[in-house]
Each structure stands twice: as structure tokens, then as C-alpha cells.
């Protein structure tokens, strides 16, 4: 059942901040609504206890995608359809474009927003591993201040983030030093469309003299929240790119996931699939 709600549809950012400031925990932000509305039906406790929604779809600045000297700046309210068709994203943040393409269906991508995907912080949020390998940060605003935080610090646990009730994520910042790295995004779902991800992987790298000058790996869906594998990245950096190294990286990643999740009913089949998927992704991209 959808509760009785007051719905605000402001046109200016200031109004959004004011509503959030005056109503605090009584109010939620609605972007695409693709998580909130189904959440009402299952009476999810995550979508209960408030009586106001503030719809942010008419705030123009939240849809802007642009770049400056330091960052690619993605408006938090950009829909996945917008991200897929944007030329800056296509050229400079291609993994995000690929991840966006695999999300939901055309109808979902037309509504669902990038910030909605990670503010909800489901373990299977597809944008997360892609944004993590790009070292994304978020700009967060409230009525009287603003802050910038790294995405990985923002994501605190499954369905939990560090966002306060009076705050809104306004921008996703992709630092320029993440641009130009080669990479790939992998998603395994039960079917191609409208499927919750079982495994997602983001990979960015740079090879010089057949050695890993840079390598960044992040996973989603297999870990409680999407995350980077820094230890493995550091282990790989500076090493000669060989079949054996790539195999070792994949095995280590599997072990790391096991450490993080413990043994589950799905471990015996999921772990080898994850290792194989990462190995294949590394071979396909890095072994020439």
C-alpha cells in the first residue's frame, strides 16, 4: 500500500533544501521512484516513517553533465537514459555508460537516477563498482553548508549511507586523473533485461612496458556493498602482465570476497564464477 503523502515538486534547489531542512526525517527525496514505489508495496521499513516526498526531477542543475579543469561533474538527478546518451560520459567515463546500459529496462532507465541507485545502496547497485574504480566523490548539500565525500566513505553498509535527513547529493565528481584509463564493466544477471545483478565487476587499468602502471578493481552484488580491492591492486601494480598474474589476481579476489561474506549457501557456485569472470575480464582486456 502506498501511504498518504504530501508531495512537493519544487523547481529550485533552494526550495528542496528548505523542505529538507524543515521536515528532516519526515521527508524523503524521490527521483525516479523505481525503488521507493515498489518499497511501499512490500512495506519495507526503509520506506516507512515519513509523510512527505520531495520530487527533484524539475531541478535543472541536478540533470547537468559537464566538465571543468578537475572533474567530470554529473548531476545527481541524471537518469540512466541521459547517462547512456551523453557524449562526455561516452568518451570519458565509458564504464559508467556500460553499467547504465545494463540497468533495468528502457522504462526504468528513463526514470531511475544515478544518485538514487547508490543512495539506496543495495548490494547490487550497478553504478557503484563503475563509480568506485573512477574514484568518484559526491557533493552533498544542506540548507547552510556543503561537503564533498568519497563515494566509498559515503557507502556505509547494505542500504546504509552517510547521508543525513536534511541533506541531498547534488553532484557526482569523477576526477580527471581517472579519465583515459582503459577498462571494462561486467555484469551477470539471470537474464539480460530487468534482472538484479548477481555479479558485477569494474576494471580500470594502464599498462606500460607490459607492467601494470595502474589497476583498479571493484565488485558489486557479491560483497555486502560494492567495494574496491585495494590490497590486490597494490599487489598487482608494477608486476609484469602475465596469464599467471591475472589468475592470481582472480584467486585473491575470490578469497577476499569469502573473507568479507563468510560461507553462504551460494558460495560453492558463486565464488568460482566470480573468479572465472574476473579472470576472463582481465585476460580479455589486459593480455594482448
Amino acid at each position, binding site marked *: 500500500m*502506498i*501511504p*498518504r*503523502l*504530501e*508531495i512537493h*515538486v519544487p523547481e529550485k534547489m533552494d526550495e528542496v533544501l528548505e523542505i529538507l531542512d524543515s521536515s528532516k526525517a519526515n521527508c524523503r527525496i*524521490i527521483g*525516479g*521512484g*523505481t525503488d521507493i*514505489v*515498489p518499497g511501499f*508495496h512490500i512495506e519495507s521499513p526503509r520506506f516507512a516513517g515519513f509523510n512527505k*516526498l520531495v*520530487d527533484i*526531477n524539475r531541478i535543472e542543475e541536478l540533470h547537468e553533465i559537464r566538465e571543468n579543469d578537475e572533474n567530470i561533474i554529473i548531476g545527481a538527478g541524471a537518469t540512466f*537514459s541521459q547517462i547512456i546518451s551523453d557524449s562526455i560520459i561516452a568518451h570519458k567515463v565509458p564504464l559508467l555508460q556500460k553499467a547504465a546500459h545494463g540497468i*533495468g*529496462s*528502457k*522504462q*526504468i532507465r*528513463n*526514470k531511475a537516477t544515478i544518485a538514487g541507485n547508490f543512495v539506496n545502496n543495495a548490494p547490487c547497485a550497478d553504478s557503484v563498482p563503475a563509480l568506485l574504480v573512477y574514484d568518484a566523490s559526491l557533493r552533498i548539500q544542506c540548507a547552510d553548508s556543503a561537503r564533498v565525500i568519497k563515494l566509498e566513505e559515503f557507502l556505509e553498509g547494505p542500504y546504509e549511507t552517510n547521508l543525513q535527513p536534511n541533506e541531498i547529493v547534488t553532484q557526482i565528481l569523477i576526477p580527471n586523473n581517472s579519465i583515459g584509463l582503459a577498462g571494462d564493466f561486467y555484469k551477470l544477471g539471470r537474464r*539480460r*533485461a*530487468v534482472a538484479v545483478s548477481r555479479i558485477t565487476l569494474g576494471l580500470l587499468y594502464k599498462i606500460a612496458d607490459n607492467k601494470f602502471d595502474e589497476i583498479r578493481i571493484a565488485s558489486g552484488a557479491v560483497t555486502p556493498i560494492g567495494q574496491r580491492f585495494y590490497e590486490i591492486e597494490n599487489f598487482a601494480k608494477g608486476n609484469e602482465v602475465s596469464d599467471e598474474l591475472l589468475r592470481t589476481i582472480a584467486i585473491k579476489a575470490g578469497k577476499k570476497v569469502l573473507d568479507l561474506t563468510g560461507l553462504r549457501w551460494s558460495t560453492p557456485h558463486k565464488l568460482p564464477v566470480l573468479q572465472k569472470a574476473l579472470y576472463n575480464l582481465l585476460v580479455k582486456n589486459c593480455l594482448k
Partner: protein
Amino acid sequence: MLRDISLNINGKIKTIRVEESKRLLDVLREDFALTGTKEGCAIGECGACTVVINSDAVNSCLVLIGQCEGVEIITIEGLEQNGELHELQKQFMEKGAIQCGFCTPGMVMSAYALVQSNPDTTIEEIKEAIEGNLCRCTGYTQIVDAIAH
């Protein structure tokens, strides 16, 4: 909360007084008797409730009417012009793309959004446009065929 909402449905401006957290799907079916739009899953997975809002195909089961002030909505009932079916509707009938018909309105609206934005579509684009529309009967081949023509 009850609120007056004005919106453009199938080319006509309408105003209603309605509970603002009512789903667009229910408003279309109950308040405007536009029952061509169907409810399958209610969670954005089946596409039976697809309508076109400001040129985009959208699941009307995921939209609350309070978000709709001033928007332009086209439903399956809006495709017919002067008593004549839209070309897509004719093709669906001709190609046998309809069996039980439950998915058809949503399917046609996804196809409509596609051909409005891009009349020269490839088979891949057609498949992508209808990937959020489930059909339990036809096996999709005839549907893709109908949209391609």
C-alpha cells in the same frame, strides 16, 4: 493529501482533485476510465502499464500523480486519430503480434516512444525498447516484426 492536478492526457488538458500519492496507473484507470493501460506486476518489471510521458516510455505503476502536474501523457487510447488506428496498432494486428492481448497496450506504447524518437529503427533498437515489456504468449518474434514494419 488531496490536491488539484492539471495534466495533458492524450492531447486534452484535464484537471482532477485527487489524493496525490495515488499511482498514475490508478488515476488513468479509475478517474479517467482509460483502462487500456494494464497492471501486471506493480513493481516496474512487466511493462503492462507503460505510457509515454513527455516523450519517454515510463511505467505508470511507478509514478505518483502528485509528480505529474503539467506533464504530457499519451496512453494507448491516444494513438487512434479520427477513428483510425495508429500504424503500429494495425501492424500488431496484421502480424499476429497479439494473442491474449494483456501485454499489448504497454508493448505498443514502448514501440510508440521508440518510433517517435527514431523512425528508422534497427532490430536491436526495437529489442532494447521492449526489453521491459513481458509477453507470455507470442514469443516476441511477431511483435518485433510488427514494430519493424
